[in-house]
């Protein structure tokens, strides 16, 4: 009986060292997250108080800088409107790609450009909305709804691509069964495909919402900045990212502290959305 030569010491060392390096670099990758969360909590929690969430920023050069109420309300309103535009639109495009356009040239082109659109910098979307809606003075200059449009453009490719993936997971046998029973195509879409894919669609949409909530650059040119609370989407509107960006630029200790507090709020908001997305995903019956 022949025995196999054992793996030589050199090869074993190379193996161990290389695996060690990948492990070390993985640790390096996780490190920044720990650092960021640590500083966010350390610096941010001190800024949190009841007043912090219930007063508007004053904009006074000295004295009480105020809280971030208008920023929170602005972010929620603008992101809500952006979602109302982008989610149906995105799911509609995904439905086209999966249900009607499968394999067609046009569908492939659309899919490719949606992919490319995910890579377009958010600042360019902002600039675009600025040119089309703000410069032309449609309904005034800067307005909350224009910010929503910019955010919606940003969310659109994310919603479309995640929805497409989920819709593709709906088994064809379900569609075929419904069609064989005589259901028209539109009923198959609304009664079979969409309900089956629902958890996945919600997950994708929530991830897109989380992404939009953290965006600063598009709002800079579209919703502008204002101190007071604004519920009217046709007016200038404050938002959390913009509030942080402005406070960082001021480089005054009290404002920087408010920036940390606002940043912690924003991150908590975004993490909650991401967490919700994951929980919904878990309920999905699709693979």
């Amino acid at each position, binding site marked *: 009986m022949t025995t196999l030569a054992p793996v030589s010491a050199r090869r074993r060392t190379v193996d161990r060292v290389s695996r060690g390096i990948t492990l070390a670099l993985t640790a390096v990758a996780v490190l920044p997250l720990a650092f960021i969360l640590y500083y966010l909590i350390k610096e941010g929690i001190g800024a949190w108080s009841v007043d912090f969430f219930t007063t508007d920023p004053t904009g006074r050069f000295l004295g009480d800088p105020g809280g971030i109420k208008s920023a929170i309300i602005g972010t929620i309103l603008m992101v809500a409107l952006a979602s109302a535009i982008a989610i149906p639109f995105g799911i509609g*495009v995904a439905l086209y790609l999966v249900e009607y356009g499968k394999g067609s040239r046009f569908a492939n082109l659309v899919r490719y450009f949606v992919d490319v659109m995910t890579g377009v910098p958010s600042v360019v979307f902002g600039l675009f909305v600025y040119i089309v809606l703000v410069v032309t003075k449609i309904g005034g200059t800067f307005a909350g709804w224009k910010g929503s449009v910019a955010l919606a453009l940003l969310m659109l490719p994310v919603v479309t691509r995640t929805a497409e*993936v989920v819709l593709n997971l709906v088994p064809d046998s379900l569609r075929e069964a419904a069609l064989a029973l005589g259901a028209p195509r539109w009923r198959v879409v609304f009664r079979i495909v969409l309900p089956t894919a629902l958890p996945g669609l919600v997950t994708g949409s929530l991830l897109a919402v*989380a992404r939009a909530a*953290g*965006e600063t*650059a598009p709002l800079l040119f579209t919703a502008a900045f204002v101190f007071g609370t604004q519920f009217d989407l046709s007016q200038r509107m404050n938002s959390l*990212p913009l509030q942080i*960006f402005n406070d*960082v630029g001021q480089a005054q200790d009290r404002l920087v502290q408010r920036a940390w507090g606002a940043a912690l709020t924003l991150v908590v908001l975004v993490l909650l959305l*991401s967490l919700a997305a994951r929980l919904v995903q878990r309920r999905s019956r699709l693979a």
Partner: protein
Amino acid sequence: MEAGSFTATTSGGRSSLERSSRSRALDPLLRWVLTGLAALILLLIAFFFIRLFIEAKPAFDKFGYVGFVFDNNWDVSKEIFGAWPLVVGTLITSAIALVIGVPVAISTALYVSELCPMRVRQPLTVLIELLAAVPSVVYGLWGIFVLAPKLQPAEQWFSDRFSFLPLIGGPVSIPNCFIAGLIMAIMILPIVSSISREVMATVPAQDKEAALALGATRWEMIRMAVLPYSRAGISGAAMLGLGRAIGETIAVTIVIGNAPNVPQSIFSQGYTLAAVIANEFNEAASDPTHRAALIAAGLVLFVLTLLVNAIARYYVNRASRGKRTVPTGMAG
């Protein structure tokens, strides 16, 4: 229903199995509405490009296409806009981001998909994805108030020791190109890592098992089966990261110092195409030439990212052909 009733007609004259005219009309309607939405996306991108171009035209007319991109003079007060310092700043910071971010991202992907114990795979993936959930402005805040001051002594030491290398040496300012690149590296890590992981998942199990069966160690298996097979896809993932880095705006605006000069070293202040738009936008609102120049910078950025992404997608799609997993990387 009696036998053979498929052709039976009701008193109204139509088959009991026939759909109502409303129901029949809805089918093509839905089809065309959805097709219209899809077509709208293509129109939107075309409209995008045309509008940006029209608005940027005055700047190109004044400085020329080549002049605008390659002239080394961005002077707002004199109304001279040559974007070369911004282009160089963008390239340097993106290069730093790739050099630091890509090896880490690939190692992470390898570790998660090939080496780590099953139990930690999911939590580790989630942790890395969470990096993508942190908003850009928060990275900027953390970068300028924590990372930049803390790293400054180390950077100064490095700058003094290795001043013989190109682009290194001289005094280190607190906001600088290196910090911007480092922050970008952290920000592109999740997308590069998750797409690399997707690509590595398409490596056939037979290839890996064959390598192991022939006596290869785990690392040799990675080197001989996994990496060659997924090389194209990993390159694509790195390019997607590059696209992200080029377009990164707010974090960079906060930490790069916004000085419109070609940086003397990676530790001096700089400017990027994206940062200039965010930073000078307010003052430009009343000055048509300045505004056109910023929009032109946006157009250059748009074209650049479009090219990079188009090439990247080509590689990634080819590598993971037929296998479309949930593109988690887009969650960023």
